[in-house]
């Protein structure tokens, strides 16, 4: 057996252990210790990312997978890079927050690395056992990360809600997967696919239960309506960097896993069923997410609903996977959108970390007039919000353009869904621009005794994210050509 294919994962795991080890040493002062641990976590993840990039230059395709547990194909390469980028950015986002407000810094960074590890295994798994274990690695470390601020009752409440909902949805999904296993007799996606391609029976309840339950469990992970109830509370209660992490890494990993499962079920007897379910979920998520986001008073809750809405857009793109003509464009669009989503969301969170620190709260009215005090953060936040709305010159526009384009090319019966998506983008412009207007055109508050300087780590993240969303808009071709070459995901 050759374990080279999972070298980046091994590095990430070692990073987590190194962080824990570094926590044991004695240091001159506490902030030095915390700084060192952040540095180890960031460096470890960066080295793993560098290994992945190095492989791409020198023959990544030659790697053999580990049975069907780990498939080193182009898609897993793409998503592992995305997840590592998201992990590195989250570490950078956390540096100052952890210094001030998290007591257990070592555990924080270690869990962050382990959660990233789970996400990386999840996107490359092509059998149900590995997929489920990786999912639990990601989920359980997320529960702990949310609960890590023990001084805050809100965080504890959020963690408990997250845990209970998570357990329920895992149960539902396992039930669905057990049906798939019972019918096909295999845990491997490829064999399940072969079984269902030759499936002769007419449509029946077994298929319905299997597909519905599996989608319900994954719908929870991507926070799609009607499985979204946990999202606003958890996003609001969690420490800010963890919120950013959940909105980026968890979402990307869950969508990538969903992509593989949909590919498995992409057969004539099952496609109409899941396409219908996804269509309903997409329309509901977009509409509810945007409408409720518009009336939120807390910026974290607003971002929670906005992330629900974005799950809706991506699910709408996934509907197009069922159509053989639009399949490849849809796949390209979804991968591209997820990458862009990481950049724009983490950029927005980087700016929000600074702004909420200045304002002393995460209520939207408290952010009023901060643009003069924190021009760079306000500028970054505005760019990311415009990109989230889907306006040029940012990559959010390109992403939505391809998503809706794929859906249109899938057939005229999806035009209404595109209509819903476009209308929703208009709604989202309303509440995103409300935030921008407040920052720029409201009277400047007095901020006595607050340190106005933007910390170097946040500066770095926000700069990278801005470069990401502008760069991906101006030069989308390399990424698009890379992801359009993805095929055979089983």
């Amino acid at each position, binding site marked *: 057996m050759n374990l080279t294919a999972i070298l980046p994962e091994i590095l990430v795991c070692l990073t987590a252990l190194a962080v824990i080890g570094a926590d044991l040493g004695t240091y001159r002062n506490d902030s030095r210790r915390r700084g060192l641990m952040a540095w180890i976590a960031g460096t470890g993840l960066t080295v793993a990312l560098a290994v992945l990039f190095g492989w791409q230059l020198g023959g990544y395709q030659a790697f053999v997978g580990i049975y069907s*547990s780990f498939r080193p194909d182009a898609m897993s390469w793409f998503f592992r890079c995305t997840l590592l980028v998201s992990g590195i950015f989250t570490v950078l986002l956390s540096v100052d927050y952890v210094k001030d407000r998290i007591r257990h810094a070592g555990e924080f960074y270690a869990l962050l690395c*382990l959660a990233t590890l*789970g996400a990386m295994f999840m996107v490359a798994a092509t059998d149900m056992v590995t997929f489920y274990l990786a999912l639990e690695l990601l989920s359980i*470390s997320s529960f*702990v990360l949310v609960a890590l601020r*023990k001084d805050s009752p809100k965080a504890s409440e959020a963690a408990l809600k997250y845990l209970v909902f998570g357990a329920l949805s895992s149960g539902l999904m396992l039930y669905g997967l057990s049906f798939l296993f019972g019918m096909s007799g295999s845990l491997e996606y490829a064999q399940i696919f072969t079984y269902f391609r030759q499936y002769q*029976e007419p449509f*029946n*309840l077994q298929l319905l*239960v299997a597909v519905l339950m599996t989608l319900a469990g994954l719908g929870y992970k991507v926070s799609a309506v009607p499985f979204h109830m946990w999202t606003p509370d958890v996003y609001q209660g969690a420490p800010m960097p963890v919120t950013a992490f959940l909105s980026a890494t968890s979402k990307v990993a869950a969508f990538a896993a969903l992509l593989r499962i949909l590919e498995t079920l992409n057969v004539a007897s099952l496609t109409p069923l899941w396409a219908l379910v996804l269509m309903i979920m997409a329309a509901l998520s977009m509409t509810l997410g945007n409408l409720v986001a518009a009336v939120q008073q807390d910026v974290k809750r607003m971002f929670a609903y906005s992330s629900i809405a974005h799950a809706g857009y991506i699910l709408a793109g996934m509907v197009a996977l069922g159509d053989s003509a639009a399949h490849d464009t849809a796949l390209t669009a979804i991968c591209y959108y997820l990458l862009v989503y990481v950049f724009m969301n983490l950029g927005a969170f980087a700016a929000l970390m600074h702004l909420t620190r200045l304002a002393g709260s995460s209520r939207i009215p408290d952010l009023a007039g901060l643009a003069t005090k924190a021009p760079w953060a306000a500028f970054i936040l505005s760019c990311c919000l415009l990109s989230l709305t889907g306006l040029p010159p940012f990559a959010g526009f390109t992403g939505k353009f391809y998503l809706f384009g794929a859906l249109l090319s899938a057939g005229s019966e999806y035009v209404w869904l595109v209509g819903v998506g476009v209308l929703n983008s208009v709604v989202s412009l309303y509440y995103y621009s409300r935030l921008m207007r407040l920052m720029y055109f409201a009277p400047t508050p007095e901020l006595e005794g607050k340190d106005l300087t933007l910390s170097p780590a946040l500066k770095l993240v926000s700069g990278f994210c801005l470069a990401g969303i502008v760069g991906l808009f101006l030069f989308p071709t390399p990424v698009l050509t890379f992801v359009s070459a993805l095929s055979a995901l089983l």
Partner: protein
Amino acid sequence: MTLRFADKLIFGLLGVAAVLLGLSVLFFAQGKVIAFYLLGAVMLTSAVGVVVVKDLIRSAFLLALSFLCVGGLYVLLQADFLAAAQILIYAGAVAILFVFGVMLTRREQDPQMVHSFEFRVTAAVFIGFGLLVLLVRAIFALPWPSHPSSGAVANTVVSIGEHFFGRYILPFEIASVVLLMALIGAIVIARKENHRA
């Protein structure tokens, strides 16, 4: 000593078990079938009891009973290692952990779960019942295909070990990372903070 509902339930279950055990001795040829229904009935009744009974400690012991029956079902399926693991881990460790948890977090009053018949409970019962009907119908909708490879294995421990270090090496390793992570997480959440000024 007055008998509570939970005690009656447990004694009732034991009685049913004794009767069925007697029957299975009488009709030895059908032993497997009888054992299946016996275990199934006790398992489901005690599982319902876990939810319905008000006293947490009794709930925990009913849960242990339910786990034991699941272990019995594994024996019937000739999965001996799984049965032993089930009894050791679930009936032995998890259920006892619940009891310890209840004991150590006990307040002045015994923890009693409150059941009130309000709208939410009624809705939950209806949804649960609907789900049950749906799942039962789905299970019996079509005969399940049988797969030739799933025959009995003489020595399951050896075979499981070979799978752990062969085909399923990666899930096995991920499981160990999950355990490590759970350990770290549990300690960091549960440890007592000595608040500095």
